[in-house]
């Protein structure tokens, strides 16, 4: 049979494709719908948080930080309750990471504050002596892309049926409303910060990346 196939590249390719595709089909299809159910009470990210997640992705925080707490005592002691599938229902893309050069961040909102993040992102070693994390001062001057974050949320709502604007869920509304809401959220965070440039920017209606990122990190609980 193999001799026969090797002389007929077309059938060889078909046979090859079926052999290769088989596993993916069996593994992925059966549980797909089940795995995407949100846990009760899970709300979609706000526009500001999504802008923060975009900063997280832009600077590849997930190259060194996981967001997946495994069900071991040593991990739940360190990071909190182990992760559940339904907690990720609104995570597009997922940002589990595959390497912990730094600690897990899935519930970092439970034990770190705005103030802590502000100092840490400016100079990690000032908060955690011995830290090998790079400094991210550019996040204090770069402006977060709220418009894309709005498009992000609206795509989730329109294409994937994520329950924005549903009863008891995160409000999205029009771009104008969403922007006003994001600015309001940003002001609350900026009030807890010390950096004057950041405060001035927010007062002027612009949101520095650091504010959005902190909003995102604080939402991870």
């Amino acid at each position, binding site marked *: 049979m193999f001799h026969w196939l090797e002389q007929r590249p077309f059938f060889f390719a078909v046979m090859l494709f079926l052999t290769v595709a088989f596993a*993916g089909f069996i593994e992925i299809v059966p549980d797909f719908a089940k*795995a995407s159910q949100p846990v009760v009470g899970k709300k979609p990210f706000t526009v500001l948080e999504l802008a923060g997640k975009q900063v997280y992705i832009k600077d590849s925080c997930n190259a060194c930080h996981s967001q*997946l707490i*495994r069900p071991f005592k040593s991990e739940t002691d360190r990071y909190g309750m182990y992760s559940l599938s339904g907690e990720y229902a609104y995570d597009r893309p997922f940002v589990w990471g595959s390497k912990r050069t730094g600690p897990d961040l899935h519930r970092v909102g439970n034990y770190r504050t705005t103030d802590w993040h502000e100092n840490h992102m400016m100079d990690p070693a000032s908060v955690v002596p*011995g830290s090998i994390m790079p400094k991210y001062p550019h996040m204090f001057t770069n402006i977060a892309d709220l418009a894309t974050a709005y*498009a992000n949320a609206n795509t989730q709502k329109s294409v994937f049926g994520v329950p924005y604007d549903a009863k008891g869920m995160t409000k999205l509304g029009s771009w104008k409303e969403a922007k006003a809401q994001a600015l309001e959220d940003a002001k609350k965070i900026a009030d807890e910060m010390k950096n004057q440039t950041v405060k001035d920017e927010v007062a002027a209606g612009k949101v520095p990346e650091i504010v959005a990122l902190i909003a995102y990190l604080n939402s991870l609980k």
Partner: protein
Amino acid sequence: MQSNAQLEYDYSVVKMFTFTTILFGIIGMLIGVILAFQLAFPELSNLFGEYGTFSRLRPIHTNGVAFGFTLSGIFATWYYVGQRTLKMSLSESPFLMKVAKLHFWLYFITILLAVVTLILGITTSKEYAELEWPLDLLVVVWWVLWGVAMFGMIGMRRERAIYVSIWYFMSSFLAVAMLYLFNNMEVPTFLWSGDAPSSIMHSISMYAGTNDALVQWWYGHNAVAFVFTTPIIAMIYYFLPKESGQPVFSYKLSVLAFWGLMFVYLWAGGHHLLYSTVPDWMQTMGSAMSVVLILPSWGSAINMLLTMKGEWQQLQTSPLIKFMIMASTFYMLSTIEGPIQAIKSVNAIAHFTDWIPGHVHDGTLGWVGFMVMASLYHMAPRIYKREIYSKSLMETQFWLQTVGIVLYFTSMWIAGITQGMMWRAYDEYGSLLYSFIDTVEVLHPYYTLRGIGGLFYLIGFFMFAFNMYKTATSGRVLDKEPANASPMAS
């Protein structure tokens, strides 16, 4: 063999891809060494503002070496091995020639754009699938062009049966096409931006959370399979018998290893998600199939080692044979190490630690890097019609790089297991013994050692680039093509 006499193979596309193999190899590996030293000496992460941080550079390294260096090497060897084993010349078909050249140029542009966009932070964040949607579309175009060239060339063949190497190249084409398409299903968000002035480059994944992770690692693991494994096996099946003048040890073993690998490999993706939130049965399947994967992997490797039966003295005389045999040996190491890490209880310690990059690098540096360089060395006298410039330089390069790899993976083994054990250590009162930063500081000597190992490898790669350049420009001109052992000046 008779019909071969009149056939003049056309190596213009091979030469173009050979150039990019070296170019992207230098870029990708240089960034790799910088990254390694940034972990040992974090001040190095802040030399170029936001564009020089570890996190920004890391995707450029992975994409640069996987899709720049390795893919270039794969395409270069495909256009070489393809023509020769199918007994056809690209110059016979102006159409396929155009396709192949377009394939090259679009590919080249894509990789350059990839470097630019990644440095600007335009990324989807999915590992080895970081490129945003416009670049993904470009990738699809040249991948299809490669397919057209491949099946076009196969259609024109004079040799009825297709050789083992072609099977493997074909599997890469088909599998990566499938994996890439499904994992990069994404929706550009500017289409639903309302009146918000959003970025046109941004997209979100079609899948959410656990499903996204599942599709990603089905892709991520098997991109490794069909970029770092199957095409490299294609290379060794052609270049080792050719260079050594020995027939492949066993046809049956090649068939068994090939179809075995094809069937088993895709299952193994689940081992990246052990103890995660994907369904348990999938994790167990991933773990079990990873162990089964030893069989077809070692099947190929042993087939190659036994090909040298009775001719082992060539290992002493030819640095080119050294590269290939060492590559095969590293393949065996890597494919026993992987399954060990996929065992659930081992994975509990190994996952998230430096043992994983350690494992990746004994595969990529030892197996992929050595085999790609060996293939280019073997092709050089045939495509440039010149003798290899320096044997002693090749010999030095071999030892320097081998030491580099050993430093790399041994330091990462120790680092990974040390950190994995420290994370789970408890004191006598039942509290965690170490804070996270304790487990980072302890790694400093190993990170330094890894950087040095990487630097050795990079220096070796510069030697390779220099040797190739000198061969192409000033090696002694050959009057006829060498049959087996590649001629090299001392």
